[in-house]
């Protein structure tokens, strides 16, 4: 017997019935509202073949361990939207291997009360896609360890900091490099791909800064206090990977001149021993 897909999963295409007229006009207006007044760090496009599906990238906010990451979400509106909320899935999980937040499971499930996937204030028809995405963005916060219910205090001293180190590393590895390379072969709409690539280049120096500031962790063990998983920190390899991605994205001439300026900076500083 085929197992039913979990109820929260928007990639389950069998929701049957047709989108009501009011739902379809409302989805369009929700999207227009985001285009006219885009919330900082949130990029959205409608699906070309299915009005009820919306693709969104949430860009990790500066000064959080998610800084610079591209978190790709698929939203699927029900037939009676906005009476019921959309279903939402985080696609940036390295194929179900990384849990980026106590509320963002590696299965892609987003635990949020307004989605009906967690306790607390429920969805209301007065909410809209932009308010939903802002709520999800707020999960990607400075100290996500404390998002876990009941975790007002660290179970082991240093857990929150360790969790941030793990998230920061996985953000660069999975949500930056993995997303730009599209290593998991996600069907990311081309418009969002362009935005990611452009943002990557603009943010490139900052990625390098983050790695520099954490390079001392290279080769040490990163620990996810939730899964107790242990991983070897690979910042040096990540730096090489970032450089390669940048090289591929830059138009030929520009990439040469930038590389030149990079290596000259390396002569003055201690960048040479990073790679």
């Amino acid at each position, binding site marked *: 017997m085929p197992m039913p897909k*979990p109820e929260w999963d928007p990639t389950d295409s069998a929701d049957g019935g047709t989108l009501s007229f*009011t739902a379809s006009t409302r989805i369009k207006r929700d999207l227009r509202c985001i285009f006219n007044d885009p919330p900082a760090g949130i990029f959205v496009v409608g699906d070309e073949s299915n009005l009820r599906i919306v693709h969104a990238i949430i860009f990790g906010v500066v000064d959080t361990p998610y800084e610079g990451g591209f978190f790709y979400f698929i939203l699927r509106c029900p037939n*009676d939207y906005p009476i019921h909320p959309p279903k939402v899935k985080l696609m940036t999980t390295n194929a179900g291997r990384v849990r980026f937040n106590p509320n963002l*499971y590696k299965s892609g499930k987003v635990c949020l009360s307004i989605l009906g996937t*967690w306790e607390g204030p*429920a*969805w209301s*028809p*007065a909410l809209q896609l932009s308010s939903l995405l802002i709520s999800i963005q707020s999960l990607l916060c400075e100290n996500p360890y404390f998002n876990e219910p*009941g975790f007002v205090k660290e179970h082991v001293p240093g857990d929150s900091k360790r969790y941030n180190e793990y998230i920061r590393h996985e953000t660069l590895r999975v949500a930056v490099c993995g997303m730009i390379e599209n290593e998991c072969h996600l069907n990311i709409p081309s418009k969002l791909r362009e935005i990611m690539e452009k943002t990557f280049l603009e943010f490139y120096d900052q990625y390098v800064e983050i790695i520099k500031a954490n390079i001392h962790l290279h080769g040490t063990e990163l620990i996810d206090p939730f899964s107790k998983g242990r991983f070897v920190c690979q910042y040096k390899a990540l730096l090489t990977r970032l450089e390669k991605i940048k090289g591929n994205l830059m138009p030929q001439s520009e990439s040469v001149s930038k590389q030149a300026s990079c290596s000259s900076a390396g002569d003055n500083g201690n960048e040479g021993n990073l790679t």
Partner: protein
Amino acid sequence: MGDEQESEPVIGTGNQDELIMQQQRQIEREISESTALVGELEPIVSLNSEYSNDNVYLEKIKDLSSKYKHIRRTRPDGNCFFRAFTYAMIEQMLENSNELEQFIKLIECSKMGLLRLGFPEFTVDDFYETFMDVLKRVRDIKNVNDAKKELHTLFNEQGYSDYMVVYLRLLTSGHLQRDQEFYSCFIEGGRTVVDFCHQEVEPMYKESDHIHIMAACAALETGVRVVYMDRGSSKSNIEHDLPEGTAPSVHLLYRPGHYDILYL
């Protein structure tokens, strides 16, 4: 969150819980959906069948039938107060075209009030338009019985019916927010009126309490009599007029967790 299985999420114990919850929700949905959104008129004694061996309730149904002729059941989906109240109010105004015209004017002005409170226009529009559409459609039918039939049809179409409920929920929230000072003392748990509105008033399927009823009545400038029927020891049912001292235009039967419409 702590419940995510770190083993491969095929169909281990973590997913089992979710599937059980899913099944429970499905059962609840089926029970709820077997009741019409708004039912037909039934004699009060039709309630007897629900309490065949329960003398306390049978006594109270007798008391109820001495005052009321009919009951109209509504779907027990948490929206029953808002649905019953709106339906009953419009239904009785169909007998009085002046009242209906005044009511249409009140609704026309109500949208501006919500926008002033900061509700984005495009999130309010569809619900407002639907509410107005229903009012105008039943107004434009000359024969009162035909108008009542149309109202009944529209209220049993999920799309219309739910949008009517949403708009009254928004109006109720708007009234609570405008009159925060007064209502704040009725709210428990240290929440602000605005929090309360976001958590208990605006979301669909959230059940209604006294405070919802008071604010909904105030927003629509009317009064309601709620007849409470429970296992309490008194022989007769307790009646409550909200707001106090206002002549009720709508009569509702309350049994723990649910409202139906009563007819004199």
